């Protein structure tokens, strides 16, 4: 009995002593799902947020959500947070953030301050999607789309679904990895508003945290093929001038080898082994007889497009394929400055081997 009394006294005094945590009760907060940054003028930026407003159901079961989007202007270097809070009825919580958009003009000037905000905050996950907008982020976030989802979920799904298909893997973690890593540069999808849909225009290329240029979406597949191994996606192959075939990829594996790593002219070999099957054909050719022929055409097309990409990347001086990192793993004396200097002149040999596995259910 004595022990119980003592424990009770101790526990109750403990409860009185403490400062309790501020509760963030789930219906007393506004959950920010999408964030947008735009260039406003030389010393200001425009920040936009989207939060869902859930309607009261009263037990009927239907969940209705409408999006509430608004923007504020703030000085560069000041956090947008306080200004945004001044317009919100509930505290803003960033824990369920899905997507961040950056206006192209802002991206040209360097994005890192805006990414650091979410990097430091322990509440934010690492799989959120980032994208550059060809235009202004606030336009997209304010737009009413035909889908029944909120714009944040729509954008997130759009990007994530495509990264599983033909677009290279991309989220906050990958961006930070490429940004901090030596011998690599980050990239993001480039979005554009087209009537009532948002389209992925291509891959936005960055040098450090500055936007430089973009690769059109048609080049996304060859880029992804050189960037990582993956199991999905499809691409077109021109058979002759007027006929195209659409091949779906089953498995694509990429392998790198470097020779003369420590010299000024390293040679990088990129070997891609692909397995695909035929999806569509616009001609009435009998594919079965010419499988070998088709495979060769595929290989040549992919190699050509891949080399075009490599040329463009070298000319721009950006390295999203992480070639510098590959060289570093072979060279003990590697350094970032040296890589930047020799990058425009390195030799990259691309070799693609494809196997066509099936041709669908029709001959």
């Amino acid at each position: 009995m004595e022990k119980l009394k003592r424990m009770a006294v101790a526990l109750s005094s403990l409860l009185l002593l403490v400062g309790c945590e501020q509760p963030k009760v789930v219906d007393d907060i506004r959950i920010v799902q999408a964030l947008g940054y735009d260039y406003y003028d030389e010393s200001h930026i425009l920040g936009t947020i989207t939060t869902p407003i859930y309607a009261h159901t009263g037990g009927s079961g239907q969940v209705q959500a409408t999006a509430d989007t608004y923007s504020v202007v703030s000085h560069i270097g000041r956090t947008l947070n306080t200004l945004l809070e001044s317009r919100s009825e509930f505290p803003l919580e960033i824990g369920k953030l899905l997507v961040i958009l950056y206006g192209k003009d802002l991206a040209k000037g360097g994005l890192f301050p805006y990414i650091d905000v979410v990097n430091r905050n322990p509440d934010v996950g690492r799989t959120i999607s980032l994208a550059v907008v060809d235009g202004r982020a606030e336009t997209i976030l304010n737009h009413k789309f035909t889908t029944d989802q909120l714009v944040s979920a729509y954008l997130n799904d759009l990007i994530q679904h495509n990264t599983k298909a033909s677009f290279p893997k991309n989220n906050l973690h990958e961006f930070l990895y490429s940004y901090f890593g030596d011998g690599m540069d980050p990239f993001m999808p480039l979005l554009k508003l087209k009537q009532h849909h948002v389209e992925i225009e291509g891959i936005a290329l960055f040098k450090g945290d500055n936007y430089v240029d973009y690769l059109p979406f048609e080049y996304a597949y060859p880029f992804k093929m050189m960037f990582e191994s993956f199991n999905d996606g499809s691409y077109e192959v021109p058979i002759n001038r007027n006929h195209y075939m659409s091949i779906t990829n089953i498995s694509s594996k990429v392998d790198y080898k470097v020779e003369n790593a420590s010299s000024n002219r390293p040679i990088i070999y990129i070997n891609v082994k692909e397995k695909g099957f035929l999806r569509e054909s616009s001609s009435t050719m009998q594919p079965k007889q010419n499988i070998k022929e088709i495979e060769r055409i595929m290989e040549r097309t992919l190699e050509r497009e891949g080399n075009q990409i490599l040329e463009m990347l070298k000319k721009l001086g950006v390295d999203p394929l992480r070639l510098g990192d590959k060289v570093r793993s072979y060279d003990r004396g590697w350094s970032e400055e040296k890589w930047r200097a020799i990058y425009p002149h390195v030799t990259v040999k691309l070799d693609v081997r494809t196997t066509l596995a099936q041709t669908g259910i029709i001959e």
Partner: protein
Amino acid sequence: MPAMLFRRKSKTNNNNNKNGHKLPSRAERAKSLSDFFSMMEESKDFVSSDHKLKHMTVRISYLNPMVDPKSIRRDILPYLISCDATKLEDLVHYLPFVSITHTKDVEQIKEKLLKGFILIQKHKEDPDGLLLELTAQHGRQVTPPEVEFSVIGPKTAFVESLDTNIALIRKLLPIPNFKVKEMSVGKVTKTKVAVIYIDGIANRENVNTLTQRLKDIEYDNIIDSSFLVQMLSDNKHSPFPQLVDTERPDRVVSALIEGKVAFILDGSPFVIMGPTTIMEFFTAFDDYALVWYLASFFRLVRLGSVAFSVFATPFYVAVLTYHYQLIPQDLIGTLISSRMGVPFPPIIEALLMELTIEVLREAGVRLPTKVGQTIGIVGGIVIGTASVQANLTSNVLLILIAMAALASFTTPNYKMNNTVRLLRFPFLIAAGFFGMIGIAAVFAILVAHLLKLTSLGRPYIEPFYPLRLSDLKDAFVRLPYSQQGQRPLLQRPVDSGRVNTWRANFKYDIDE
């Protein structure tokens, strides 16, 4: 004299001549007996009358309600009237009773008279008499068990009479090693208690501990075995019962064969067994009646539902109050819109709902059956739906609490059921103040408590700690009978081999 009833034990010992003290003289005994009689005669149910026999007179005294009236007319008076006895001792040969006690011990006479024996004296003042046992059987017949019902399996349960209960057990254990030791507890109620065990399997230490503790009990009113459980427990303040109670003879017998010790209280239909572990409270008879993987699955379901019942609501409160980031994207809309407009924070909402369920439960226990159905419908459906629509609570929480309440009933043991009901509240309050860290802290304290708990000196959360892999065969899951060749180590049985598993598992070769 009231003092007589509350006389201390030591004085009683004196009269029994154990310590070599002087026996009270005849005069003292006669006086004590006549005082006793004058007190008894104040109650209407005490019958005392003289009967004239052939060569002597006797005085027969008894308490009317406790004695079977037919027996007196049939088994005693005819034989007395026709017998040729001249002295009290000779009557023994004439009466058709197997055991008649002839005693000069006044205390014993008083005790047995009060228990329903018949006293035969030569005359009223004589402190020397015969005691015959003729107690009437008041009590119910053997009925199916109420609390530990099993779908398949014997439907016998213990009753309130000690002798009937022992008979039920003896039927299943026809061996000479089955020992029954009797003693009495309770100063006023003087209830009979029988300690039973199988000699040669049960560890002597367990038996001695139990017997010693029973002897040390200081209390006046022992009516039910649950009182005894609290007094015999290692830790009297723990919410966890340390001795398991059961109303099924088959369960007692299985326990005894494993090496447990049990005791039966006269007047209580629950037999108490020990030492025990926490897993025993979650096993039901049906576990042993089904195939082992089915039984294991259901046992796991049971354990899972108990865990769910304790943790579901606290997690809801913690996540909704502090950790909204944990909620998956698709679920967050449902949760928010269900909580929209509810005026209370989640912790208050949860506490209110839990208390409502407890009120419903308590009311349901005491309602007469005719009204029970209506209240069930009113309480469950109408109140629930109405409070959601009036926006006093959220429907997600209502589902959780209702399911948690339902899940807690899967515990086969009533005492553990209550413990589980109670356990939810500290977690709930901790979750409301400190979120998930609070839940973790309360859980750690719970584990600390369980680690220190012992049952008759044996660790309570065996086989988890100390880890006894061989005992795990019947804890979470139940392995087939062919695997259970040893008795559980918990009881430290003297003889731990159970069956010859090699013989049991022997298989002929293919086509042999």
